[in-house]
């Protein structure tokens, strides 16, 4: 007779039915949504909170990113929020009592042209002025940190040097989500999966709740944290967002023994590569050009990433592709996020992170929770409001943020 199956391990969070009313509702149960709920409870004492997730917890971009964490952005506003996030990452495993394998193995941003070198050295100087750790490395120093990078001058795009942020790294994305979810749940936050928001309850220009596939729920304040579907929700709420949703693809190889000690990013050849703790080589690059909600993209984009990886890492020549996938990323006109109030009262938005939201998870959650709790932006997200597209005070990280978007 077959042995009975073992008991299921203890659940990390409850699976409650939605209540009729909450003080705050967060729409979107990804990393940013969970972090928002966590800081609403922890920093502001607002625990009568629901996180509504249309699918399963952290099954969108939180499950599809390449887990790179860094803060070496050019502009002051960006450096502030990403560096704040990085400082949170450094102590979150202890705070959440969950080892999500945050590994500060450093990130190299390679320079392949004179223009790259000028951009990179300028960014290193800007980073240092913002107290972000950054240094410029010559090719031989790059090879010391990551011996498998081809620094030979005899290639099409030789490595002329790199910026290095030693405190950057990677983390296990699923475990990050689970850590936040468990902590939220313990403080009384209801995490409600399979609950899609289909509309908004409004009293004039003020939001009073949401319509969902599991019934109407009233709320004192509502935060939209839905990444690629932000425009769809905003339209239901009656306003527009300056974002476009694109597929962003990534891929992993089969498992290999540790060969890649750091994170390598290259704008010019255009790929970013790290090796996960289990051994997969993880890589990604830019978005597919067209708008799309399909969570998949075109194969030539994947081929381009792999060609770039091979150019930089000849050792990958016999590696096998295991899996590719796509997420839907919401790209804003200046490649910077939008966090703040909306034209609808009591309705707040956190979107526009494009290809780089994972690294900002704790910073975005912190700022969004503050904005929802107080009705006014935190110092970190004040420059990132919707109004910047009217005033023209853009935070133009296109080509400045150490990655081509």
């Amino acid at each position, binding site marked *: 007779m077959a042995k009975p199956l073992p008991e299921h391990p203890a659940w990390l969070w409850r699976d409650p039915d939605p209540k009729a009313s909450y003080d705050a509702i967060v729409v979107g149960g990804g990393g940013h949504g969970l972090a928002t709920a966590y800081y609403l409870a922890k920093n502001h004492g607002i625990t009568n909170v629901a996180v509504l997730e249309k699918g399963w917890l952290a099954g969108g971009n939180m499950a599809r990113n390449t887990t790179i964490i860094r803060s070496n952005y050019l502009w002051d506003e960006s450096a502030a929020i990403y560096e704040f996030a990085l400082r949170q990452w450094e102590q979150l495993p202890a705070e959440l009592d969950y080892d999500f394998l945050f590994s500060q193995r450093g990130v190299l941003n390679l320079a392949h042209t004179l223009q790259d070198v000028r951009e990179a050295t300028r960014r290193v100087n800007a980073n240092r002025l913002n107290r972000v750790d950054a240094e410029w490395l010559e090719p031989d120093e790059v090879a010391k940190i990551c011996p498998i990078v081809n620094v030979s001058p005899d290639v099409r795009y030789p490595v002329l040097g790199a910026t290095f942020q030693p405190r950057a790294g990677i983390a296990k994305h699923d475990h990050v989500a689970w850590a936040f979810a468990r902590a939220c749940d313990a403080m009384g936050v209801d995490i409600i999966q399979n609950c899609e928001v289909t509309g908004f309850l409004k009293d004039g220009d003020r939001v009073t709740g949401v319509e969902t596939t599991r019934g109407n729920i009233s709320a004192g304040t509502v935060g939209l944290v839905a990444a690629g*579907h932000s425009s769809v929700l905003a339209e239901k709420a009656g306003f527009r*967002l300056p974002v476009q949703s694109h597929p962003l693809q990534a891929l992993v190889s089969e498992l290999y023994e540790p060969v890649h000690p750091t994170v390598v990013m290259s704008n010019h050849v255009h790929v970013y590569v790290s090796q996960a703790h289990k051994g997969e080589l993880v890589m990604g690059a830019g978005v597919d050009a067209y708008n799309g909600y399909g969570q998949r993209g*075109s*194969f030539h984009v994947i081929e381009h990433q792999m060609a770039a990886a091979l150019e930089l890492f000849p050792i990958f020549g016999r590696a096998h592709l295991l899996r590719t996938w796509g997420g839907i990323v919401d790209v804003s006109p200046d490649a910077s996020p939008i966090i703040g109030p909306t034209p609808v009262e009591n309705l707040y938005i956190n979107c526009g992170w494009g290809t780089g939201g994972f690294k900002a998870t704790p910073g975005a959650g912190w700022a969004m929770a503050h904005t929802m709790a107080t009705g006014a932006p935190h110092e970190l997200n004040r420059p990132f409001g919707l109004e910047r*597209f*009217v005033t023209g005070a853009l935070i133009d990280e296109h080509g400045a943020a150490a990655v081509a978007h």
Partner: protein
Amino acid sequence: MLQLSCPWCGPRDETEYHYGGQAHVPYPEDPSALTDEEWAEYLFFRDNTKGPFAERWAHSAGCRRWFNVVRDTRTYQVLAVYTNSDPRPAVRFGAEAGGPR
């Protein structure tokens, strides 16, 4: 990879084309008369439709001409191709069901 049919050159791979975003966004008739809000709307705000979406493509590796496509952004199925001088064709809602993915 998408396959798009250029109105002048016929079916070609996506790699021959460049994407141009939402179609039918006219330049303001009198830009200097716009408020800052209206200018922002023209400059930065585009539809981000989930479903049939009219968009521009350029056949940059071929005839180098721009044209319009209605494509379902959920399934990526191409529903119509038409030139810039044509109005947006009506696409039957649900026509994409069962189409190539």
